[in-house]
C-alpha cells in the first residue's frame, strides 16, 4: 500500500491535471456614474482618463496571466461596464477579442440609465450573447432608497430594445427591502414575469458595512418576513428552473455554474477574484497599485482538504447539489463515504437523488448551518486508490 504522503502527492498531481482546465473569465469594470446605497463592491466614480488608464492596465494583466486556454464563458461585471463610453467599450471588447474561445457564453452587465441601442449593437457584434441587468426593483419608492436612477418604464423600453439583438437576458431583483411588504414584492414579480425573459437572480438585501445604507442606520427586515418573501418567490417562479439558491432560469448561467462547480477561472481587473492552478487569489482594490502592475493582494494555495471544503460550500448552492460520480472521477473520493455526509443524510438535511448529493430544500435557506460542518474537515482519508 502506498504511504499517505504518496497518495496525497499523487492526488495533488491528479487534481492539477484534471481541474486545472480553466474555461472561464471574469472581468471587473469598477466604474459607476452613480453609487447604489447597498453596494460594497469595488467601484470608482466614472472619469474618462481613469478609465483609459484602467483599460490599458487591464490589457497588461490579461497579457501577463492568460495562457491561451480555450474559454467557454466570459462575464464582464462591475461596477457598471456600460458606464464606459462607446469608444471605451469598443476598446474593452477588442482587448477581450484576443481570447481564444469556443461555444462561448458571453455576458455583460448593463445599467438601464447608460445603455442605448448603439452600445447594444456594439456588444452584439462582438459576440456578447447574454445581458444581465441590475433592475433591483420596479417600485419607485425602493429605487430611490437604493439610489437607482431608472424607473419602470425605462427598464421595459430598454429590455424590449435589447431583445432585438440579444434574447438571453437576466435581471437582478432585490427583495427584503426596508419597509417592503409581500404585496409589493408580488407586484415586482408580476412585472418580471410580464417581461418574458429567461433568467432572474433574486437576492434579499444585506446591509453590508461600508455602504450608504449602513451609514444611514437602515435595518434589515424581520427574518420571518424575509423567509415568507423567499417562499413567495419560489412559488411564483415555478415556470423557471430554481437551479441555485438565488437563481431561477429557463436558460442557466453557465458562467456562474463554473463557480458553483468549484472549477478554475480567471479574475481580471480591480478587486476581481480568480482560481488558477489551485490558487484562489483576489486582486487589489487600489487603482494605483493595479495600474502599476501590482495586481494580487491576497492569494492562497488550496490543499486537498480545502479544495473539497469549497466543493461542498459552493456545490450545495445548487439545488441539484453535487454529482457523486463527477466527484469520484475528479477527486477520487466518494462523498457518500464521508462521516459528516452520512450523519447529515441520517438527519435528512442532505438527500441523495439521481446520483447527486444535495441539501433538502427545507434547509436550503438556512444552509450555512450545514455548510459549517464541512469546514476544516479531513477529506484526504477518503481518497481511493
Amino acid at each position, binding site marked *: 500500500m502506498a504511504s499517505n504522503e504518496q497518495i496525497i502527492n499523487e492526488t495533488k498531481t491528479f487534481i492539477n491535471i484534471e481541474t486545472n482546465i480553466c474555461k472561464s473569465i471574469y472581468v471587473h469594470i469598477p466604474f459607476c456614474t452613480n453609487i447604489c446605497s447597498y453596494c460594497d463592491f469595488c467601484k470608482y466614480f466614472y472619469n474618462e482618463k481613469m478609465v483609459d488608464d484602467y483599460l490599458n492596465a487591464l490589457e497588461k494583466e490579461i497579457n501577463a496571466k492568460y495562457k491561451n486556454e480555450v474559454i467557454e464563458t466570459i462575464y464582464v461585471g462591475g461596477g457598471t461596464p456600460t458606464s464606459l463610453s462607446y469608444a471605451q467599450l469598443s476598446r474593452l471588447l477588442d482587448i477581450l477579442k484576443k481570447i481564444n474561445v469556443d461555444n462561448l457564453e458571453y455576458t455583460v452587465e448593463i445599467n438601464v440609465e447608460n445603455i442605448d441601442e448603439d452600445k447594444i449593437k456594439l456588444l452584439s457584434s462582438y459576440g456578447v450573447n447574454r445581458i444581465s441587468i441590475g433592475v433591483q426593483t420596479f417600485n419607485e419608492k425602493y429605487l430611490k432608497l437604493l439610489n437607482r436612477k431608472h424607473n419602470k418604464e425605462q427598464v421595459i423600453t430598454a429590455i424590449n430594445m435589447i431583445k432585438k439583438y440579444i434574447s438571453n437576458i437576466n435581471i437582478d431583483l432585490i427583495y427584503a427591502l426596508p419597509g417592503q411588504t409581500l404585496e409589493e414584492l408580488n407586484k415586482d414579480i408580476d412585472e418580471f414575469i410580464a417581461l418574458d425573459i429567461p433568467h432572474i437572480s433574486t437576492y434579499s438585501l444585506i446591509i453590508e458595512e461600508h455602504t450608504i445604507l449602513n451609514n444611514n442606520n437602515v435595518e434589515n427586515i424581520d427574518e420571518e418576513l424575509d423567509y415568507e418573501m423567499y417562499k413567495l418567490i419560489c412559488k411564483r417562479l415555478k415556470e423557471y428552473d430554481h437551479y441555485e439558491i438565488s437563481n431561477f432560469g429557463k436558460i442557466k448561467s453557465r458562467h456562474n455554474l463554473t463557480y458553483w462547480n468549484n472549477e478554475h477561472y480567471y479574475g481580471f481587473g480591480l478587486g476581481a*477574484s480568480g482560481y488558477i492552478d489551485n490558487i484562489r487569489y483576489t486582486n487589489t482594490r487600489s487603482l494605483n497599485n493595479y495600474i502599476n502592475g501590482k495586481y494580487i493582494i491576497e492569494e492562497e494555495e488550496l490543499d486537498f482538504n480545502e479544495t473539497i471544503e469549497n466543493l461542498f460550500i459552493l456545490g450545495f448552492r445548487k439545488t441539484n447539489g453535487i454529482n457523486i460520480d463527477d466527484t469520484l472521477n475528479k477527486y477520487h473520493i466518494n462523498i457518500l463515504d464521508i462521516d459528516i455526509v452520512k450523519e447529515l443524510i441520517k438527519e435528512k438535511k442532505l438527500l441523495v437523488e439521481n446520483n447527486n448529493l444535495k441539501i433538502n430544500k427545507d434547509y436550503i*435557506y438556512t444552509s*450555512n448551518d450545514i455548510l*459549517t460542518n464541512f469546514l476544516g474537515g479531513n477529506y484526504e482519508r477518503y481518497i481511493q486508490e
Partner: protein
Amino acid sequence: MKQENIRNFSIIAHIDHGKSTLADRILEETGAVTERERKDQLLDNMDIERERGITIKLNAVQLNYNYKNEDYVLHLIDTPGHVDFTYEVSRSLAACEGALLVVDAAQGIEAQTLANLYQALDNNLKIIPVINKIDLPNADIEKVKNELINTVGFDEDEIILCSAKTGVGIKELIEAIIERIPAPKGNENEPLQALIFDSYFDSYRGIVTLLRIVNGKVKVGDKIKMLATNCVYDVVELGINNPEEKKVKELTTGEVGYLCASIKSINDVKVGDTITLANRPCKEPLAGYKPMKPMVFCGLFPVESSKFPELREALEKLKLNDASLEFEPETSQALGFGFRCGFLGLLHMEIIEERIEREFNIDLIATSPSVVYEVELTDKSIVMVDSPVKMPDRQRIQDIKEPYIRTNIFVPSNYIGPIMELCQNKRGNYVSMEYIDTTRVNIHYEIPLSEIVYDFFDKLKSYTKGYASFDYELIGYKSSNLVKMDILLNGEIVDALSLIVHKDFAYTRGKAIVENLRKLIPRQQFEIPVQAVIGTKAIARSDIKAVRKNVLAKCYGGDVSRKRKLLEKQKEGKKRMKMVGSVEVPQEAFLSVLSMDEE
C-alpha cells in the same frame, strides 16, 4: 531596632478617598521610594487592582523615619476598602496597633469606612482621623470635621488635615503615627509567636508567608513549626518589603516581614495560624482569625471541559491567600464538571472570576449567584442549601429561611425617596434613618441577601446618580415564602439556570428571565420553547423562533474566500456556546437572571 521605636499601622478608607495615593506619599516622604521611581499606587501590584482602583490583597511595607533624633521603623499594612474584603481587613488590623481613618474632604464619611472603623475599634487599635484631599476646590473641611466629631466621637484637635496630592500635612501625619500609635508589646526573650496574616505562592521559593512577630524572634536556619498543622520547616529566607524585597537575617518582636521555608503544599500554611520554633515552642497559639463564612455561591465551569484540572489548580492557588474562598466539585447536566464556589460577596466573586480568566487563562461560565438557605424538612431536620439544584423536593420542605442583611446606605437626603422605593422593591423592611449632617442620611433596611446578590448595586448607583455608598452586615435568617423555579429549554430543565425566588416575585422574575433568554439564545434550526416553571406549573413562556435565513449571499465576481471566512466566523461563534441538550446556549445566558429588567 528597638522595639519601642516600631510602629505598625494600616489605613482605612473608602474607595477613591485616596488611600493608595496617601500610602505612596508616605513612602516618598520616608524615602522608601524616590520621586523618580514613583509610579501610581505602588502597593497595588495586581493589574486588576490598578485598573479598578481598589486594593484586594494586603501588602506590608517597612519605612524608616528619623524623628527627634531617634530612628523609627514604621510598618504600613495596606487594607482593602470594600465590604467584601472585611476578612482581609481584620487580618491586617490584627497585625497592627493603630490605623489611619482617611476621609475625603469633599465626600465625607462613607458606609464602608464606618464598617472598617468599627472593626479597628474592636481590635483596640489607636485611630488617627485624617481628612484627605483638602486641596480640592469643593473640599468642605468644616463639614467633614463635624461628621468625624459627631458620628465617631473624635476630638477636633485629633484630626489631621492633609493632601496626598500636594504633600501638605504628610510630615505631620507621620509624626502623629509615631507620637500616638503605641509601640508593639511583646517580649523578644519569650518563645517565638508569629502571626501569619497572608501568604502567596512564588514559583521559585514556594509559599511565602507574611508575618508579624508578636513574641520572640526568628532567624534564618531556625526550625519552625506551624501550630495548626504541626508541620516543621527550616527557615530559608527572611525579609522585609520597603517596598522592594530586602533580605534580613532575623525578624524580632514587633516586626513585620516575610518568611520562606521551601513550603510546597498549600495545605500546610493557614492564614491566621501561629508560627513558633520547633525546639522551643510557645505554649499557646495566637488568637488568629475567625474565617468569614462565604455568603454568595455560584458554579464556575470551564468553557472547555478539558480545562477542569486547570480550574482546580487555579482555585487552589487563589485559596492560598484567600481563606474565605470555598469550592467543591459540582457536576451540572448542562455544563459538565466544575466547582461550586463560595464568596464573601459579589465583588469578591467578580474578582476571583476575573483573576482565573486573566492569570490562569481559563474561560469560565459562571452560573447565577445564590445565597445559603436554611431548609427545615418535614422530619424537622435542617439542611443548608447553597445551590438551587440541591433544594429538596417541595413535599419534604416544612420551611425555608433565607439570610437577611441590615444596610447602611449613606446618601444625600434628596435621594431618600428613590432609595426607599428600591429597597421596597427588593423586599426590604424599613428599620430607621439617621441624619449624619443636615444633607446626608444613613438609611437602615433589612433586606434578604439574595436580593442584594441580583442587581442591587447597579440599581443603587442608577437611582442615586452614583451618590450612595452602601454597606451591610448579616443579621441572621428569617422565614420566607420561597420556591424553586426551574427554567426549561426545549422541554428540558437546565439545572444551571434554576433559582430560588420569593413566591410573590416569581411571576415577574420568571417572565423577565424567559424574555431575556429568548433574546440571548440565538435562533436555531427548530423552534425552542423557553419556560419558567415552579414544580410542574408553568408561569412564563416565550418561544425562540427557528432560524429562517442563514445563507451566503451573492458571490460577487466569484469571491469565494470571503464566503468561507464568513462561514468560519459562524463556526467560531458556535464553538463558544455550550450544547444544552439539543440547544446551543451562549455563555451570557447563564448569568441572564442577573441582568434583567423588571419592567
